[in-house]
């Protein structure tokens, strides 16, 4: 990146690239700060919580470990050290890319992430695609169609944006898994088992994306170039999908960056309800048993994904629309 900066002095294209590079470096540095903050906050939040992780490790309140076992466990995980020392050791290991060993899973955290990450990724990507599909199918077709249709559709969007994942998940389960038996109620082995959790994540998100897309689409549809396109004899759908949509897409795209965070928090709920594999359900369990390395490991990976996605969206914007660069030096 720095070599690009020194070379690009005169060429305006290069200058733009260099500016972009600088921005990327700044954003990446900011991202690292965010990750450090996530690791530190999670560390102290969990370690300052009243209660003893050793008890959680040894099987909870109904367990009967001997004092020797408690001592050995405390030593093994370094929990006998002062908190500050533990923190420094922990950060040191993190810098070397070592996320440690999960207390509760008896596995390295990286292995847990490798085994569970795929299922969550599959779910969130499926949900994001599904959400866009719903938006394209419903919103693009119904925007600017007069008060009644538009009003009804927009009400449906607001309503679905407000639906909590857990409620939607339970309703989908009741209707399509228990009632109609179209889809399996639990598991993560087949594509069929992905459908219901993906819908329960996608519907509220589609509501959000649809709201902003509808607004900008309606503005676009009033533009003169739409009239021009129509006067060339293009069909209504062609006008909407080929001409109007391009201009109206941007707010929705930027919302999708934010949505990755929302999807992952929603994945926690969906994975629990639908008994799916995944880091969300794992995180939920890890918090309950004060499994510090696993909680931090999952939080860090999720935060890193979120930070990266947002940096990419930001850079994409700069590239697509250089005017923004001048507005924000």
């Amino acid at each position, binding site marked *: 990146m720095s070599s690009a900066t020194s070379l690009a002095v005169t060429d305006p294209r290069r200058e733009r690239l260099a500016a972009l590079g600088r921005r990327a470096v700044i954003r990446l540095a900011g991202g690292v700060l965010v990750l450090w903050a996530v690791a530190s906050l999670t560390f102290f939040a969990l370690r300052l*919580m*009243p*209660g*003893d992780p*050793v*008890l*959680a*490790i*040894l*099987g*909870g*309140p*109904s*367990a*009967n*470990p*001997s*004092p*020797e*076992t*408690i*001592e*050995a*466990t*405390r030593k*093994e995980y370094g929990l*006998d050290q002062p908190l500050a020392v533990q923190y420094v050791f922990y950060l040191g290991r993190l810098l070397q890319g070592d996320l440690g*060993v999960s207390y*509760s*899973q*008896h*596995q390295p955290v990286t292995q*847990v992430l490798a*085994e*569970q990450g795929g299922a969550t990724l599959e779910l969130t990507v499926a949900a994001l695609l599904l959400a866009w599909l719903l938006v394209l199918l419903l919103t693009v077709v119904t925007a600017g169609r007069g008060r009644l249709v538009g009003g009804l559709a927009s009400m449906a969007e607001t309503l679905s944006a407000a639906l909590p994942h857990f409620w939607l998940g339970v309703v989908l*389960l009741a209707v399509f*898994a*228990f009632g109609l*038996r179209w889809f*399996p*109620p*639990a*598991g*993560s*082995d*087949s594509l069929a*088992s992905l459908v219901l959790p993906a819908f329960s994540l996608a519907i509220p998100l589609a509501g959000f994306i649809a709201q902003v897309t509808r607004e900008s689409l309606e503005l676009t549809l009033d533009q003169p170039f739409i009239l021009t396109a129509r006067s060339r004899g293009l069909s209504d759908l062609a006008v909407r999908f080929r001409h109007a949509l391009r201009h109206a897409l941007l707010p929705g795209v930027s919302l999708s960056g934010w949505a990755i965070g929302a999807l992952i928090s929603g994945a926690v709920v969906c994975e*629990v*309800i*639908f*008994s*799916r*594999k*995944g880091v969300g*359900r*794992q995180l939920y369990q890890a918090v*309950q*048993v*004060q499994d510090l390395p696993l909680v931090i490991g999952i939080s860090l990976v999720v935060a890193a994904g979120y930070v990266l996605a947002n940096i990419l969206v930001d850079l994409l914007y700069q590239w697509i629309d250089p005017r923004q660069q001048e507005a924000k030096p």
Partner: protein
Amino acid sequence: MNHPILPLIPLCAALALVGCERAEQRTVHSDQPVHGGTLVYATDREPTCLDPHVAGDMPQVFVAQQYLDSLVSMDSDGRIGPWLATRWEVSADGLRYTFHLRRDVRFTDGTPFNAEAVKANLDHMADPKTQSSTAGGYIRQYRGTDVIDDYTAVVRLATPYAAFLEVLAQGFLGIQSPTALKRSRDQNCESPVGSGPFKVARWDRQNQVELVRNPDYNWAPPTAKHQGPAYLERIVWKFIQEPSVRFASLQAGEVDVIETLPPESHEAARRNPDVELIVAQRPGNPTNGTFNMRRAPFDDIRVREAFVRSADVEGALKSVYFGEFPRAAGPLSVATPFYSGDFEDSQNYQPARAAKLLDEAGWTGRDADGYRTKDGKRLSATVLIGARTPPSELTLWEQVQATTRQVGLELVLDQMSDAQVTARQAAWDYDIRTGYWNTNTPDVLRIIFSSAFVQPAGVGGYHQNSSGYADPGFDALLESALATQDPEQRRALYHRAQQQAAAQYLQLNTYPQSTRLGIYKTAHGVRLEPSLAVTYLYDAWVSK
């Protein structure tokens, strides 16, 4: 969910759907076990480690019972029988147990079972590095094993421990291959090796454990219904956390057996002709709220009894659990060896007696809210409710709260994280602590009520005796019960111990812990291993 394609009855394939169902029906009523096939089992919680020596939570023993054998077995009357040990002698001082072992047993990794294996297992449970709470906690008296010859092992104890054989029958103390135990703890958690009727094939975390048949198995316990290899070819042990989803999967026939059938589904399960129920109480100390007698108001036995007498537990159980959970009012649950039914009425709902006791204890004033007071202080008790407390259990306590209020006793339900509960427990900062203890020996009374367990274990500072009851007479009684092997003497001593614990009103006991299985018409011969009422699929078969 992927339906495993099974070798169906050939006739079935040729028939129309109706005919096929009829054919299945016939299989259901036949008592002839079918060899082969896969049984899909769904439970709520995933074990954190498949080796039950490590930590030691109930989900571990349920799955481990399928691939580990124990040194001794226990029948449904609580009698100890042979298993991997054919016979044993106990020295007169109760400190030396000589085990004579079977000579034909091999672990599924090929390692032979012998005296060295017994030593390796007991050493492993007692080793602090194993992080064993349950198995290690039960054999604190263990000092070592002497290998006399290949098939004779002498176990040395520090103090007499008549409950030793009982705890050895629990799956938590299951015997594993010493070769496998030499690996790291985490490796052994992933794929423990036993000598049982099944072996662990694969653990797909947060999804399922796959078990396959051990074809060489020929050393089933005397409690088993057959000998030789198991009927099932394969078991898929799935984790489905949501109770309603689990039950719906059973009704749809997606799974063959479910565990922890929610009480609200019992009625629906009984009405469903395709589903059978197995409900069994677990031995040990029933579900309870234990009174902290180290501080007011429960330092006064009259207030403890008044609380018990003012709590309408029967009424609460009827409304919360639809009458599916019986009352357990004594310190031991019915399924525990040496249980006595004499104390089932010791906690009956008697609000008039409660009021009288509180008057006698000096709680005669009343404040603006109608609660009793003494010296200007309100009669109030706090029960700690952790985040993992099931909602039904919370509702149960709310019902108790409503009835204790009628005699002027305020019950505060303090909801917090489980970690906070632990901290408050360690600091003795509570009036009532909820809990239960699953074990197959009345020696549980020593763990929950003897003075040795008032002391915090280790720096973490939590104590198993959450009542704070410390009575040298009671301690001595329980010690003497451990010093004799004579069943009648033990029965008499444990009767006295139950009597004393009940008379001290140390707990409000509510209902026994139970194992509740729902069984679809495709599964047969599913039964419970008696020591801890744990699912045992050795005799099970499927007709699909």
